[in-house]
Structure formats: structure tokens, C-alpha cells
């Protein structure tokens, strides 16, 4: 027996909560990065990283999205990505890269709390994200 009304309301409530968490991050980062795009800061960072990005099949300024994802979280990374006008393939590569490795500061602190070798896990995540991005860029 399913309590339709309760289940429906629970779903709405969970959906709104999750969406709000995302929206709170997306709006400020989206605006911030749009402003930064008008300044030389982005192209400066992009120039430094573009040699590496090339191997991942990504434009230089995607480095900013990766840094935002690594340090803050996926939604910060996505908010930075969207104004860059990437292709579907580049979005897929970034999706795998950031899926494997994001929100590193907070998540590494969480892993430290479960009393395990968190620094080793951190190293594994970052290496895997770069290796996998390089690999699927060759495959797809």
C-alpha cells in the first residue's frame, strides 16, 4: 500500500531542497565568472593551463571550471563551464573528470573522519580524474 499523497509531497520537498542547494551555488558563481570573463584574469589562467588542457581535449579556460570543481564543488564547476560554450564532447569529458574529483577539501575532510588514509584517496581521485579525461578524449 503506497501513501500517494505523502510520497508525492516528500518528493516535492526533497526536490526543492536539492534544487535550492544547487541554485544557491550556481547563481553567485555564474555571475562571478561572467564578470571575470570580461577581465584578463580568466585568459591569464587559461594561458597557463592550456598546454595541459590540450591533452584532455579541453580549451584553456576550462581550467578555471576544473579548479572551481576541485576546490568548491560540482555546481561551481558547472556554473563556470556553461558560459564557456563547450561542445557536447567537452562537457562529457569535464563531467567524468569532475565526477571523479570534486569538492576535494570538504570530501577529503569527511574521509579523514572515517579514519582512513584520506591523503592516498585524494591522490587517487586527482590522478584518476586526469587520466580518465585523457583516456576518454582519445576514445570518444
Amino acid at each position, binding site marked *: 500500500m503506497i501513501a500517494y499523497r505523502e510520497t508525492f509531497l516528500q518528493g516535492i520537498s526533497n526536490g526543492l531542497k536539492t534544487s535550492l542547494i544547487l*541554485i544557491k551555488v550556481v547563481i553567485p558563481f555564474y555571475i562571478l565568472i561572467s564578470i571575470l570573463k570580461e577581465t584578463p584574469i580568466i585568459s591569464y589562467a587559461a594561458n597557463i593551463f592550456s598546454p595541459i588542457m590540450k591533452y584532455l581535449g579541453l580549451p584553456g579556460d576550462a581550467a578555471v571550471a576544473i579548479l572551481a570543481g576541485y576546490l568548491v564543488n560540482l555546481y561551481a564547476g558547472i556554473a563556470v563551464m556553461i558560459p564557456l560554450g563547450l561542445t557536447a564532447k567537452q562537457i562529457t569529458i569535464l563531467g567524468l573528470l569532475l565526477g571523479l574529483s570534486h569538492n576535494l577539501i570538504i570530501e577529503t575532510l569527511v574521509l579523514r573522519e572515517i579514519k*582512513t588514509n584520506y591523503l592516498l584517496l585524494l591522490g587517487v581521485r586527482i590522478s584518476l580524474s586526469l587520466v580518465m579525461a585523457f583516456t576518454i578524449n582519445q576514445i570518444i
Partner: protein
Amino acid sequence: MDFSNLITVIIISLKGAIFLSLKLLLIIVPLMVFYEFLKQITFFKKGGKVLDYLMGKVGLSSRAAIPLFTGIFLGIAYGAGIIIQEARERSLAKEEIFLIGLFLATCHAVVEDTLIFVIIGGNGCWILGPRIILALTFTFVLSRLFHYSNHRI
């Protein structure tokens, strides 16, 4: 960049940000409702059995189930409380905690993470597939290593 230029950029980006937010709402809310109904039906029981079998294959006991599933579906950061609590209360072996950590480090919050990239135009199979394969392979290989040696991490 002068001041009026800055205002223009802010207004345009605010519009873009609001549009993206609405898109997120329109996709996530119905999905969560759907997910709630799935949970009510036999979804979790059947999924549970399959995952139980897979867990055995990668060297994890059923005691690891709660922290593992919380992490897989909710994410490390969101499920932190449960993972920390479970890891302590159940006094899981050090090796097993590391295996859970390894699995979750590569594969967590998979529904939400994948969906969000699909919304903006990515290929879900290529984003999710490698993560699942990597998590299963790594956990399997390491559990064998732990099994055949007394090496402690």
C-alpha cells in the same frame, strides 16, 4: 571595463543564472518525486539484492551497506553524518573502511552528478560508466590484495 558595462554583464548573467536555476528545478523536482515512488515499490529490495551480490564480489560485507549506499546515492559530503557514524559504530575492519572510502571516492552521488551534466548536454553513459567500472575494479583488486596479505593501510 567601465561601470555601465559591468551592470550590463551582471544583468545578462543574472538572467542566464535564473534560467539555469529554473531548468534545474523543473528537472530535479519531478525526478525526486519519481524517485520517492520508486523507493516505495520493490525497487530497493531488488536493487539491494543485486548490490549485495556485487558487494560480496568486491570484498565488502553487508555491514558496509549503509555507509556505502548513503554515499552512492547522497554523496560523501551529504551523507557524511551517516558514514562517519556507521564507520565508528560498526567497528568495521580498517581494510574495509579503506575499501568503502576508495569506492566512494570514485563513485558517489551518481544520480545527481550524472544528471546535472546530462542536463547541460553531456553523455551520461561516458560520465557514469567509467566511474562505476573504476570503483568496482579498484575495490575488487585491493580486496584481493588485502585477502592475500596482511598488509594494513
